[in-house]
């Protein structure tokens, strides 16, 4: 799943002194999250005497993460390691789109519509998709979920679009 280190040198945007780009970038990202958390919790109350305030624990963990991030970054500079793994855009893009589409339509359009649309969008995420079978499986799965969740499991899910119910 990772780029093999033995491969011919991949064109790297990293400067030469970064010998382990994977850790280097990972560490910096951790530090970024930590700094963001420190900022986000800066308005919270700190220690009052010897009792913790609302902000004490978050700041404590954020500081810890900052330190760990720095250490990982240092490891990224000091040791040999793997190149950045290659990212693919197709899978992540369509799966994300499908999830977003589901979230946006479930309230107004009901489960049957939402699930089927999202299924078809997600299916675009793989180049191997064949449309005929995908549509058939999508319809069957939607029907299955429409029976399973509201009826078999008793969860309150709206099946049809709001305008059709009224």
């Amino acid at each position, binding site marked *: *799943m990772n780029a093999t280190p033995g491969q011919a040198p991949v064109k790297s945007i990293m400067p030469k002194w970064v010998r382990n780009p994977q850790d280097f970038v990972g560490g910096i990202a*951790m530090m970024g999250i930590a700094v963001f958390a420190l900022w986000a919790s800066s308005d919270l109350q700190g220690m009052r005497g010897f*009792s*913790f305030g609302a902000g004490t624990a978050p700041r404590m963990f954020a500081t810890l993460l900052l330190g760990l991030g720095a250490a*990982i970054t240092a490891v990224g500079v000091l040791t040999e390691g793997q190149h950045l793994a290659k990212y693919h855009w197709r899978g992540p893009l369509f799966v994300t789109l499908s999830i977003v589409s589901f*979230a946006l339509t479930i309230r107004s359009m009901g489960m049957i519509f939402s699930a089927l649309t999202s299924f078809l969008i*997600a299916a675009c995420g*793989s180049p*191997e998709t064949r449309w005929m079978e995908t549509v058939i499986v999508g319809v069957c799965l939607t029907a299955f979920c429409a029976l399973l969740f509201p009826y078999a499991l008793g969860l309150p899910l709206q099946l049809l679009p709001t305008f059709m119910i009224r």
Partner: protein
Amino acid sequence: MGDIFSNLSLGFGVVFQFVQWTPAFLGGTSIPIPVNILLCLIGALVGTLVGVLPGIGTIATVAMLLPITFGLPPVGALIMLAGIYYGAQYGGSTTSILVNIPGEAGSVVTALDGFQMAKQGRAGPALAIAAIGSFFAGCVATVLIAILGAPLTKLALAFGPAEYFSLMVLGLIFAVVLAKGSVLKAIAMIVLGLLLSMVGSDIETGASRMAFNIPELADGLGFATLAMGLFGFAEIIRNLDAGGESDRQLVQQKVSGLMPTARDLRDSAPAVGRGTVLGSILGILPGGGAVIASFAAYTLEKKISKTPQKFGRGAIQGVAAPESANNAAAQTSFIPLLTLGIPPNAVMALMVGAMTIHGIVPGPQVMQKQPDLVWGMIASMWVGNLMLLVINLPLVGIWVRLLRVPYRLMFPSIVIFCSIGIYSVNNAPTDVIIAGVFGLVGYWLIKHDFEPAPLLLGMVLGPLMEENLRRALLISRGDWSVFLTRPLSAVLMAIAAGLLVLTVLPTLRKKRDEVFVESEN
């Protein structure tokens, strides 16, 4: 001794509970239905069904199936979840043996010899010995839980906040030591989990923390949401990268002749025994669990075997030992959860999440106040194991057929199933979006060699740790030395520190890496 029996009989009483069902069409005749056994059976079946899908590990399976238990009463829900867990584990082994794609780290070693056996046309005996070994391990582990449950609960009641905090630190350190890969990165993941658990409102003051006035974040990040994003969605995205079918090499031979020969049984019996012992011990350790147990059991078998060259070429011991260890550990890892309320690994963390949704806070109090729940669950573990033995072997044919479902159809189905599941937790579309975001985060983490499992553990332990830390310091009037001056706490802290030092030492690190590298050559 008498305690153990009365507890176990209470447990089996709960599991074998019959509910009278009086359908109208029968005109008043009522039929007794063993509800909990049925739930356990359904759980094990569904768990295997999802767990068998290549590339979906135990954590992902449990996370995905969590929503289907929401509508049940607490006891039934937990029994079903336990069933799902075992089913998922067994499903994972089936996949490793037949397709050589281990769904999770725990069954990587099973794939080594199991797939070789399958290629030689001995998939049947491999699957059977995995089931029999697991069942044996399950029986031993159930008894062990029953024996250790009560005394550990008594110990837990003597714990103050300082001890609890130290114990959790120890658990997290164990998780780091036993995880594979970089120690530093594993610790960073735990701390990130702790930090994420801080989002929401403060337990004492009610102040909103890092929620940015988003109403859905006011109660904190949902645990099920995060787990499904990090494991469900992220796994899908990652598997899409790999290009689906290209590297699937399903065994084409028909699976025939399920029963192992007498020689197979004789060969694997000692391996099953050793695997069970090793797995039971490693499972109890906080942070341990199934993964390390199966690796360790395989390594041990290879070390003491008279014919180590056979390993990797279809040695039946290479299937029997890790599978037994795997199952024993999976089961004994319930011990710290049920007695101390501390989840020792990511799957148990999910169990805590499920319990919380049902309003149960795991720990010694539950053991005393709701014994039917705890012992019912323990008894259901044994029943669950029996179910696996009974349902899986005859159904092998179906699982094989399921393995042939192409990934291009499977992954959109999983996306939809997860989305509906997450939405149904709170009827909140925002939760689905948050899970999607964590799916991308998880994908990024995998790409940068960060393991998401410790993050989940940190996320669950975060609030508990903060609460106990605050209380301990309040009681000691701000004196941090309380963690070292109280004897029990001091011992726990000392073990934690010692472990951490040991892990960083070069010689032990090499040993530790060896165990994990075993699978690659």
